[in-house]
Each structure stands twice: as structure tokens, then as C-alpha cells.
């Protein structure tokens, strides 16, 4: 016999369970229209895979799961898809959710389905996939996808599998009737769960207010290693963490999950659904729901197709509308008021409660808290409800978290015992939502800050890269200029040409900018002198080392000296004529403009000439150039310049000769015509 533990607090509200246990489970039949909300559990909404007007068979997949924490939906009966639209759902917000509406045809025609005869021969992953495909979500209340809960990694060893048959909330008898009538199926489902997660021990926990159920279950577990644990009735012993404490004496750590202490909890209804999915291949399309309350004549449990409108179900139980009529999904402690009776039954609807105004009266208005401490005595999570209440009123979120608000299971025991009728749970729910929202906002803010900073960094980096490129370009240009200035102009004709062009440009620019021409000349003298120095140095070195370049270097020195002299002369001449030049200089004459004007005048003059005249002119010019080049060539030969220069000059001469021949021909042709 298992040792039964107790948990802190708890209350003993009137049970009101016997009303709905007078008769057995009744088949609710097929309503004319079924509404399947796509979002009816924790996790992502499913996506429809059928079109409006399509005929669907019972058990056919109509919406597939989106993501890991999501479950698919199946057609509860055969019929036609009438619409895919927003419909009201059983949610305290009174919001709509996209839903698939099916007009049933009454044939209840099954889609082809097949179970596994021997589940022990099937791979664990396959079994889990079957459970996932069957759309099974926890049927106790929260509706967490069961396959996710059962996907225990191999590194996690499960000590205890607990089947929750407690059903501690008043009025609800769905699990009690399941125990009475379908104990064998519960046990079969439990065996499958055992096979799936391989626990050391398996316990079905039942409160002692269900003697018939316990008897049936004891009989069904004969010959298995499943243990039935019976414990005294107290609300809320059906809370997952409370049940674990009752059966094992262990507490689930704050903010943790049962698996952290090696325990997996499943609801009885879920076990039956898993059995049907595995052994019969049937998806979750119906469930047992209690319809009770004084406003129905015949409170009882129905085997109801999911998507059945609640109105259809309460009418079946003999509903008598009264004034201030309320319709509650779930029990009186944790249930939510349904905005409209046309909302459908979903996977988590274990009870529909239709009380009269006398049965569950609107509580009197809340009075001030008198700090009696009864709520703290009743709290099953050992919290301090009145402190939480103060902090919730003052929106002191940090204090709320310090006082473990998130361990509150919202069972309502504190509100139940409060002599001032303060709706404590509502404060906690609101504060929890507020904190969750603030956390989400904070996470978002963090993310956008990170993005903003990353962007700033990127922009700075791009700017730096651009700057670096610019600097590199500038440096390369400088280097080139330096090299050009260093190398002797006579040594490389190309370089020399570039240099000349540059010098010209510089001079032009200098002129344009009004810089003294004399400066340029002075510079030329200075650079020539420098070149002479280096050349002399080289010559000395060569003489010392006895190199065969001595002669060439000597002539180079001579040449450079000549150049220097020339430059000095030019400078002297410039300096001499400076006053005149300055006097002659018209103010603000742009040399570029002058050049352009000159060129234009020349072109105009040329255009005025006849073709033969033009040709003759060309010829004359070319001949002049040829003569000049020949003279240069002679000079170079005489000076014993490098072969390169001579070659280049030779080539120029040849080219000019060719051109002259062409021009002569052209002139001749022009003369002939």
C-alpha cells in the first residue's frame, strides 16, 4: 500500500457530483452542424487542409498541425464543409477564432483507419507520431499537446507515471463516469503509456469520493503492475503538482515541470484517447462531457462529438432558461463563463455547467481585505495571497515575482474562503498576464536594441572602409608621383612624357591659380640640381666598384649638368623679363580659355580652307615635325643616349614618313581633282 501524503491548504466545497452520476454515458448523437475551431489549445493554431464545399468523412484530417506544439483537427462526422470562417469560441475574451464549419449528413461514414494490433512491436517514435496525428491534447483542462508531453528524451529517466483520476472540482464527473464504465480502456491506454515512457512505477490516483469507479478500476488492473492509489477528497488535489505531492511526497520545484523530478502526469481521458488512437486508429473526435447544474432537468454525461454546439447539448439534457442565466465551461472554481451557447465543445471541455441564479449566486461586492490570513491557510501552493493582492493592486511586479506569483495555479481556493469576497484569482491572472506581456515587450526591446546597435556598427564600418579606400587611393597616387619625380626623366621616355605632361598641367594650373611661374622654374632648377647630385653619387660609386657603367653614368652626369644650366638660364631669363611680363599680363586671363580660343580659331581657319589647301597644310606640318624629330634623333645619337630612346625616335620618324607619304597622296589627289 502506497503512503499517501498531504499538501498544504485546500478547501472542501460542496461536491454536487451525484446529480450527473445518476445515469450512464449517453451518446449525444450527431448535431446538424459542427464547428471546429482551429485554435483550441495551447500552442499554434492549425491550418485547414479542406476547402469549402468539400465532402469530408468521419475521422478525416481537416486541419494540420503548425509546428511542434500544435495538434491537427479531424472531422468528427461525415458531411460537407459549409464554411471556414471566424466563429465564437469558449474563451473569456469573447473573441472569435477561425473555424471549420461542417454540415453533417447523418451517415457517420468513417474514413479508412487502422490500428496496431501489437503496439509493443511498434517503434516508440512511430507510436508518438500516431498520437500526434490523432490530434490528442491533454483533456484535463489546459489542452497541452500530449505527444509533446510524452516526448521524453532518452536521457530523462521517468520514475513514476501518474494517471490523474482525481477530478477534484465540484460538479464535474466526466472522469468518474469514465472510471465506472470504461476502466478497461483506461488500463489499456495506461499500458500503452507505460510502453512509451518505460516508468519504474505507474499509479492511478483517485479521490475517495468515487467508490464505484475505484472498484471497477481495481478489477481492471488485476494482473498488471499498475497501482491504484486512493486518497481523501480535497480541492485542489487534482492539480498536477498537488497530486504529485500527494502520491510521492515530492514537490515540483518552482518554475519547473514534473519531468524535472522524474514524473509524467496524464489525464484519464487522454489515456482513453491514446488507446483509441493506437489500437483502433481513431483520431480524437469525441469526448465525455458532463452537462450539469440546476438549470437542466436531466444532468448527465454525454459522449459528444467535438464541435457540437453547447446549445445542442444542454437542450438534450433538458435545459430550462432562467433569468441571469450563466453558461460555464469547466467547473465552478476554475471554469470560464461562455459568451454564447452556440460555442462548440472542444478537446478540453470536460463540463458544461448551467446553474440557476440561486445555485451559484453572483457574489456580493468585494470588501476591504481584513488581513485575516484565511487565504494563506487555503493556498495549496503555500503562497501569501493577501500580499500578492496588495502588490497586484499596486502593480508592483517585481515584488509579485519575488512572492512567487507564477507558482499560483489559479485554483480559486483563496477567493473561495475570502470573507471579504475579494476576487483574488482575478488579480493574479491579470498580474500574471501583465508581467508576461512586459517580459515579452522587454525581450522585443532588447532585440530591437541589438538590431539598432548592429546597424550603427555596420554603418560605422562601411564608412571606415570607404575612408580607408579613399586613403589608399590617395597614397597610391602620391607614391606614383614620388616615383615619377625620383626617376631620371632621360631614362624612361614614357615616364618622361608623363612627367612633362604633368609639369605642363601643373604649370597651367599654377597659371590658372595665379601662382608665380618663377616658382615653377625655381623648382625645376632645384630638382635638376638634386638629380645631378644623385647622378654624381652614383657615378662615384660605380667608379669605386669599377663597374662598366661608368661611361654611361658619366655622360648622364654631364647631361644633367647641362640641363641644370639650362634651367638656371631659363630662371635668370624669366627673372629678367619678369617686370615686363607682369606688365604685359592682362589681369585674370585664363590660359585654358586662351588655348581653347586658339584651337577654335585654328579649326575655323581650317574649315575655311579648301581640301587641297588643307592637305598641303597637313603635309607641311608633318614635314616640319619630321625634320624636328630627325634632328632630335641625330642629337640623341650624338649624345650616345640609351638605345630605347633612339629606337623610339626611329619609330617616330618612320611613322611620320609614312604619314607624309599618305598626306602627299592626299594632296596629290586633291590637286588632280
Amino acid at each position, binding site marked *: 500500500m502506497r503512503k499517501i501524503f498531504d499538501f498544504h491548504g485546500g478547501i472542501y*466545497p460542496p461536491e454536487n457530483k451525484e446529480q450527473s452520476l445518476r445515469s450512464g454515458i449517453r451518446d449525444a448523437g450527431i448535431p446538424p452542424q459542427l464547428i471546429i475551431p482551429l*485554435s483550441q489549445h495551447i500552442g499554434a493554431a492549425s491550418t485547414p487542409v479542406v476547402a469549402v464545399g468539400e465532402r469530408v468523412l468521419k475521422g478525416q484530417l481537416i486541419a494540420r498541425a503548425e509546428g511542434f506544439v500544435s495538434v491537427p483537427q479531424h472531422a468528427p462526422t461525415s458531411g460537407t464543409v459549409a464554411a471556414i470562417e471566424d466563429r465564437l*469560441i469558449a*474563451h*473569456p*475574451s469573447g*473573441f472569435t*477564432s477561425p473555424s471549420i464549419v461542417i454540415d453533417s449528413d447523418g451517415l457517420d461514414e468513417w474514413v479508412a483507419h487502422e490500428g496496431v494490433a501489437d503496439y509493443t512491436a511498434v517503434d516508440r517514435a512511430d507510436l508518438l507520431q500516431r498520437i500526434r496525428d490523432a490530434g490528442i491534447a491533454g483533456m484535463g483542462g489546459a489542452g497541452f499537446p500530449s505527444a509533446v508531453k510524452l516526448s521524453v528524451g532518452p536521457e530523462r529517466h521517468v520514475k513514476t507515471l501518474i494517471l490523474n483520476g482525481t477530478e477534484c472540482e*465540484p460538479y464535474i464527473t466526466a472522469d468518474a463516469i469514465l472510471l465506472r464504465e470504461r476502466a478497461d480502456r483506461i488500463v489499456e491506454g495506461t499500458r500503452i503509456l507505460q510502453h512509451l515512457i518505460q516508468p519504474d512505477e505507474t499509479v492511478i490516483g483517485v479521490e475517495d469520493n468515487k467508490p464505484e469507479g475505484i472498484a471497477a478500476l481495481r478489477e481492471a488492473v488485476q494482473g498488471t503492475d499498475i497501482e491504484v492509489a486512493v486518497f481523501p477528497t480535497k480541492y485542489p488535489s487534482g492539480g498536477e503538482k498537488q497530486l504529485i505531492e500527494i502520491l510521492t511526497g515530492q514537490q515540483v520545484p518552482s518554475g519547473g515541470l514534473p519531468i524535472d523530478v522524474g514524473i509524467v502526469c496524464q489525464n484519464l481521458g487522454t489515456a482513453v484517447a491514446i488507446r483509441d488512437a493506437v489500437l483502433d486508429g481513431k483520431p480524437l473526435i469525441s469526448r465525455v462531457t458532463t452537462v450539469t447544474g440546476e438549470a437542466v432537468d436531466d444532468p448527465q454525461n454525454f459522449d459528444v462529438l467535438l464541435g457540437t454546439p453547447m446549445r445542442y447539448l444542454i437542450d438534450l439534457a433538458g435545459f430550462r432558461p432562467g433569468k441571469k442565466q450563466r453558461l*460555464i465551461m469547466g467547473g*465552478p*472554481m476554475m*471554469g*470560464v*463563463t461562455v459568451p454564447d451557447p452556440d460555442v462548440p465543445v472542444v478537446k478540453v471541455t470536460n463540463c458544461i455547467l448551467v446553474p440557476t441564479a*440561486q445555485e*451559484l*449566486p*453572483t*457574489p*456580493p*461586492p*468585494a470588501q476591504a481585505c481584513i488581513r485575516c490570513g484565511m487565504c494563506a491557510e487555503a493556498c495549496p501552493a503555500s503562497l501569501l495571497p493577501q500580499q500578492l493582492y496588495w502588490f*497586484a*493592486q499596486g502593480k508592483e511586479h517585481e515584488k509579485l515575482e519575488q512572492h512567487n506569483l507564477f507558482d499560483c495555479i489559479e485554483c*480559486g481556493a483563496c*477567493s*473561495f*474562503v*475570502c470573507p471579504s*469576497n475579494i*476576487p483574488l*484569482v*482575478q*488579480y493574479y*491572472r*491579470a*498580474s*500574471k*498576464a*501583465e508581467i*508576461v*506581456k512586459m517580459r515579452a*515587450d522587454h525581450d*522585443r*526591446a*532588447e*532585440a*530591437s*536594441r541589438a*538590431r*539598432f546597435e*548592429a*546597424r*550603427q556598427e555596420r554603418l560605422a564600418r562601411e564608412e571606415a572602409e570607404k575612408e580607408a579606400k579613399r586613403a589608399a587611393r590617395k597614397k597610391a597616387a602620391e607614391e606614383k608621383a614620388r616615383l615619377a619625380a625620383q626617376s631620371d626623366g632621360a631614362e624612361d621616355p614614357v615616364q618622361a612624357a608623363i612627367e612633362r605632361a604633368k609639369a605642363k598641367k601643373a604649370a597651367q594650373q599654377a597659371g590658372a591659380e595665379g601662382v608665380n611661374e618663377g616658382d615653377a622654374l625655381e623648382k625645376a632648377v632645384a630638382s635638376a640640381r638634386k638629380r645631378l647630385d644623385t647622378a654624381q653619387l652614383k657615378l662615384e660609386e660605380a667608379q669605386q666598384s669599377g663597374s662598366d657603367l661608368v661611361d654611361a653614368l658619366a655622360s648622364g652626369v654631364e647631361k644633367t649638368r647641362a640641363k641644370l644650366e639650362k634651367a638656371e638660364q631659363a630662371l635668370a631669363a624669366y627673372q629678367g623679363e619678369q617686370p615686363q611680363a607682369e606688365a604685359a599680363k592682362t589681369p585674370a586671363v585664363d590660359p585654358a580659355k586662351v588655348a581653347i580660343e586658339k584651337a577654335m580659331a585654328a579649326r575655323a581657319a581650317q574649315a575655311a580652307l579648301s581640301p587641297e589647301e588643307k592637305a598641303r597644310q597637313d603635309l607641311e606640318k608633318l614635314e616640319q615635325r619630321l625634320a624636328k624629330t630627325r634632328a632630335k634623333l641625330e642629337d640623341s645619337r650624338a649624345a650616345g643616349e640609351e638605345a630605347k630612346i633612339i629606337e623610339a625616335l626611329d619609330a617616330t620618324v618612320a611613322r611620320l614618313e609614312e604619314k607624309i607619304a599618305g598626306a602627299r597622296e592626299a594632296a596629290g589627289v586633291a590637286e588632280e581633282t
Partner: protein
Amino acid sequence: MSDFITQYPLLAALLALVSLGLGFGALLGFAAVRFRTEGNPIVEQINEILPQTQCGQCGYPGCRPYAEAIANTDEAINKCPPGGEAGIQALADLLDVEAIPLDEEHGEEKAKAVAYIREAECIGCTKCIQACPVDAILGAAKQMHTVITSECTGCDLCVEPCPVDCIDMISEQASLRSWQWTLPDPVSREVTIIATDATNPEERAA
């Protein structure tokens, strides 16, 4: 040693105190160097409170510069409309100053919104991409642009540069996911808690 103390008690005390002072001074000096705090920690804390929309409504180019201004130049704390009254309250608590109402000049507190580009009208000019402070707009020159909704802070900065006015700010719709319980109104008699052990008022009267 003890002779010295008994002979010159004043000098001994002086020496002891001076050496203690030097010792602790050295220790403190070392600690100041060894455990130096980088930057101004208060800036970080202020920045943590600011909503990071980077919208510039405060007149600073981003939340961080505003945080720096608050910390270093006594800038008013009521210039952040996205942060709203709650943000001002948090800043006031942090800096231990009086909470002041939001400065209307810088805009008013609005519901959170997300930019939406009417894609058919987008000409692909990339101007909004350059304006977005959090890189939440995707696109390229002459290609259609779109907003990465989950990254959009709703700062409005992309709306103005758009040459064809194809960007809308859509405020967040109430949905099942965003719905939350509200604090009960103490005056209202609308109570969502169902069961109490309070007796029926009529029964009590009887």
C-alpha cells in the same frame, strides 16, 4: 618598540595613523584601478527602461543618446511617447525624481503599431530601408520591399521618406493571443469568479 610608544605616545599614535592611512589609501587606489566601472552604469539602466523603438521623437538619434542625455545633462524624462506614463514612472523611480506628465511636444502615447508596405505600390527606392533604425525592412533597389513585422518597432520613421506614400502604420489588433485578463474593477459588480462560500444575499436576509 614598546619603549618608543611609552616615550613618545603622541608620535607613535601619529605614525600608526599615518601608516594606516597610507595602507588603506593604497588599497583603495588599487581597487579603484582594478575594479574600474566602464562607462556610466546609470546610462545602461536608463537605456534598459526606454522602449528601444529608436524613433527619435525625443529629439535624440536613438534611445541610447537620450539615455545619455538624461544621465549627463539633466534632460527631462518625459520626452518618450512610446514609453508612455509607465516609462516615465519607471525612470522617475530609478532616478529618484518627480514623475512628470508626458511632454505633448514630442508626441502622444499611441497604441503599438507596425509598418505595412502596400507592396503593389512600392517602387523599390530603398529610402525606407535607409530610414529604418532597426533594419526591419527587406528589399533592394527596384525590388519590392516588405516589413519584417516581428522586428518592426513602429517608430514611423519609414513613413515620411516614402515617395509614393505606400507605407501604413497598422495598430496591433486585439486577438486571442494578445488578450489578457484585466484587474477587476472594485466598483463594478461584474465578477468572473464563480464559486465562493458566500451565501446568497437573499438567504442571508432571511
